[in-house]
C-alpha cells in the first residue's frame, strides 16, 4: 500500500505544471535566501495565498521547493557579503567569506551548492523512507495518543525555541487559545466571536501567519536610523564554481556527516537550520585533522554548514507529515498550506491524503535537482539581488501582505486581522517571545480541542485515561521532562548532582 502511494506521488509530481512550479519555487527561494533580512518562512507565508487557485499538491510542491532553495540562497549573501541571507547560513560566513576574499568566491558558492544538494537529497530520502513508516504507526493512534502527541509537539517547540521556556509556552498557549475562536466543532457553539460574523469560521490561519512572519520582518528592515552597510567582496564571480572530483572526495565524509546531523536536528521540533549549521560546522571541526584552518577559508567549513542546513528540510518535514506536528516555523507555514485546502494535519495525511502528501515528498526530492541546476544558472545573477535596499523591500512586502490577505476571502476584515497579528508579532519579537510556538498552537488548537473531548468521552470524564494509556503516558512524561530540563530546578539538580558525583570521584 505504501509502495502504491509512493508511486502515485511520483506520477503526480511529474506533471508539467508541478515540475514548472518546483523550478519556479526553487528559483524564488534562491533569490529570497540571497537577500539578507528576508527569511524562507516569510516568503512561504507571503506566497501561501497564491497557492489557493492551484491544486493542493502543486501549490505545496512550490512552497516546499522555495524552502529548499532559500536554504542554499542564504549562503550567497553569507559568502559574498559576510551577512547570512537566512539565519541558517550563519556558520557559512566563517569560511565562506574568507574564501571569497581570497579570490575563491565561485568555489565557495560551488561547494555550498554541492553540499546543499547532497544534504537535501539525503534528508529527502530519509523523509521518503521514515515518514511513511512513522505515519503507519501513527495511524494506530486514537484520540488519547493524539492529544499527547499535540501536547508533546507544543511543549518541545516551546522549550527548544530561542529564549526562555516560559515565553515559548506562553506564546504556544496563546496561539492555541486563538485557535478556539469560532464555531466549536463539537457543540456548534460560537466561541469568542463577540457577535462578529467574520470570526464564526475562526481566525484564518494564513492571515495570522502572514501577519506574524511578514509585517515584523518588514518593520525590522526599516527600524534602524542608518541602513546596514553591505559591501560585496566581489562584483563578479570569475572562478569555476563546481569542485573537481578530487576536491569533492576530500569533502564527501564531512558532507555526509553533516547531512545526517541536519536530518536529526530537523526531526526535533523547535530546532532548525540555524542550530544544524553550527552543529554540523562544530562536528566537522572536531573530526578534522587540521582544526586550526577552520575559519580561515576552507571548503570543508562551508560544506559542513551548508549540508547540515539543507538536510534540515527533509528532517523537519518528517514529524510534520507523519504526525501533524511541524518541526520548524517554515514547516508550520507549509502545514498552513495544507489547511487552506481543507486538509487537516495529523496521521490521516499519509492515508486519506496520500496523493497530496507523497507528491509533496517527491517534490522535496526533485527540488534538490532543481536547486543544483538553477543554482549553477542563477547564482551569478543573484549577486545583484543582494544589493536591493531594505527600505525598498519593506513597502513591497507590505503590499504583498495586504493583497495576499485580502484575496483569501475577498474581505477587508482579514487584512485588519493580519495587521493586528503583525503588530503583535513585532511586539513579541522585541520582548524576545518566540512566534513559532504561537503558530504551532494555532495549527494544533483544533486537534487539542477535538481529541480532548473524544478522550474524555471514552473515559467517561476521567483524566486518568492519559496516564493509563502507555503511549500517551510516555509522550506526556517526555513533554514534562522537556519542560523540566529548561527550569532552574533541573540546572540546580544537575549542578548539585555533578558536585556530589565530582566529590565522590575525588574521594
Amino acid at each position: 500500500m505504501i509502495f502504491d502511494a509512493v508511486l502515485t506521488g511520483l506520477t503526480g509530481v511529474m506533471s508539467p505544471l508541478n515540475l514548472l512550479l518546483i523550478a519556479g519555487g526553487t528559483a524564488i527561494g534562491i533569490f529570497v535566501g540571497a537577500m539578507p533580512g528576508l527569511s524562507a518562512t516569510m516568503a512561504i507565508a507571503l506566497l501561501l495565498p497564491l497557492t489557493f487557485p492551484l491544486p493542493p499538491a502543486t501549490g505545496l510542491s512550490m512552497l516546499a521547493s522555495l524552502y529548499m532553495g532559500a536554504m542554499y540562497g542564504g549562503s550567497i549573501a553569507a559568502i559574498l557579503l559576510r551577512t547570512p541571507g537566512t539565519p541558517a547560513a550563519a556558520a557559512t560566513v566563517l569560511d565562506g567569506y574568507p574564501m571569497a576574499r581570497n579570490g575563491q568566491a565561485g568555489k565557495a558558492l560551488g561547494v555550498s551548492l554541492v553540499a546543499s544538494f547532497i544534504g537535501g537529497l539525503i534528508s529527502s530520502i530519509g523523509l521518503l523512507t521514515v515518514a511513511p513508516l512513522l505515519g503507519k504507526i501513527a495511524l494506530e493512534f486514537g484520540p488519547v495518543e493524539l492529544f499527547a502527541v499535540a501536547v508533546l509537539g507544543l511543549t518541545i517547540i516551546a522549550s527548544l525555541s530561542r529564549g526562555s521556556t516560559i515565553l515559548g509556552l506562553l506564546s504556544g498557549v496563546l496561539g492555541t487559545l486563538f485557535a478556539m475562536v469560532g464555531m466549536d466543532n463539537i457543540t456548534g457553539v460560537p466561541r469568542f466571536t463577540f457577535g462578529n460574523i467574520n470570526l464564526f469560521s475562526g481566525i484564518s490561519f494564513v492571515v495570522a501567519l502572514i501577519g506574524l512572519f511578514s509585517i515584523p520582518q518588514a518593520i525590522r528592515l526599516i527600524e534602524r536610523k542608518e541602513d546596514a552597510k553591505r559591501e560585496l567582496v566581489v562584483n563578479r564571480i570569475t572562478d569555476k564554481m563546481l569542485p573537481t572530483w578530487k576536491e569533492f572526495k576530500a569533502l564527501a565524509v564531512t558532507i555526509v556527516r553533516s547531512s545526517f546531523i541536519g536530518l536529526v536536528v530537523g526531526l526535533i521540533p523547535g530546532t532548525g537550520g540555524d542550530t544544524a549549521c553550527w552543529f554540523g560546522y562544530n562536528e566537522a571541526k572536531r573530526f578534522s585533522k587540521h582544526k586550526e584552518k577552520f575559519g580561515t577559508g576552507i571548503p570543508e567549513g562551508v560544506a559542513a554548514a551548508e549540508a547540515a542546513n539543507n538536510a534540515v528540510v527533509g528532517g523537519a518535514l518528517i514529524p510534520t507529515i507523519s504526525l501533524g506536528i511541524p518541526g520548524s516555523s517554515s514547516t508550520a507555514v507549509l502545514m498552513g498550506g495544507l489547511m487552506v485546502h481543507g486538509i487537516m494535519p495529523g496521521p490521516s495525511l499519509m492515508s486519506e491524503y496520500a496523493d497530496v502528501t507523497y507528491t509533496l515528498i517527491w517534490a522535496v526530492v526533485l527540488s534538490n535537482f532543481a536547486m543544483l541546476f538553477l543554482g549553477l544558472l542563477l547564482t551569478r545573477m543573484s549577486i545583484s539581488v543582494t544589493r536591493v535596499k531594505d527600505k525598498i523591500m519593506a513597502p513591497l512586502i507590505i503590499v504583498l501582505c495586504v493583497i495576499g490577505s485580502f484575496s483569501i476571502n475577498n474581505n477587508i476584515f482579514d487584512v485588519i486581522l493580519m495587521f493586528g497579528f503583525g503588530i503583535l508579532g513585532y511586539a513579541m519579537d522585541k520582548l524576545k517571545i518566540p512566534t513559532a510556538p504561537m503558530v504551532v498552537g494555532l495549527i494544533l488548537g483544533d486537534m487539542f480541542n477535538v481529541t480532548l473531548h473524544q478522550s474524555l468521552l471514552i473515559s467517561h470524564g476521567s483524566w486518568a485515561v492519559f496516564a493509563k494509556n502507555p503511549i500517551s503516558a510516555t509522550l506526556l512524561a517526555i513533554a514534562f521532562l522537556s519542560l523540566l530540563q529548561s527550569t532552574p530546578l533541573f540546572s540546580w539538580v544537575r549542578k548539585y548532582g555533578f558536585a556530589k558525583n565530582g566529590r565522590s570521584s575525588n574521594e
Partner: protein
Amino acid sequence: MNRLAPYLLFAGAVDSLAVVFYVNTLKMPKAAYQMPRILITLVLLLSVLMIAEQLLQMRKTPSAENGNTLPAEISPIRIGVFVSLILAYVLTIVPLGYFIATPVFLIGTLLFLRSTKLPWILAITVGFTGFVYLLFVLFLHMPVPMGLLG
C-alpha cells in the same frame, strides 16, 4: 523605560484578553468551555511566571535594570510613521481601490524612507503595482479591491 514595563504591559494585555474570554465561556456548555478554560488558566499562570522570570533576571543583571528597552540605533519615529502608513493603506484600500491606494502608499513610504531617487521610486511603484495585478488578477484570478474604479 524600565526593562520590566513592556513585559507588564504585555502581561496586562494577554490577561485582560483571558478574562474577557473567561467571561464569554460562562454562557457555554461544558463541552465547549472545557479546553478554552484550561488555556485561559495557563495564560494567566504563564504571564505571572513571565513577570517573575524577568524580575529574577533583573536581579541577576542589575546594570540593565533601568536601561532603555530599545537600542540607540533604532528609530521609534521611523517605526511609528511606517506603521501609521501601513494602517492608512489597510483602511483606505477598499474605499479607494488597489490602483489608487497602492501607488499612493508605495510612493509615500519610499519617499519617507528616502529609499532612492524620485524617478526610480515612480518606476518601482508602477512596475510593482502592475506586477502584483498581473500575478493576482490576470494569472491567478484572485480578487483585489477596485474601490473608486470598480
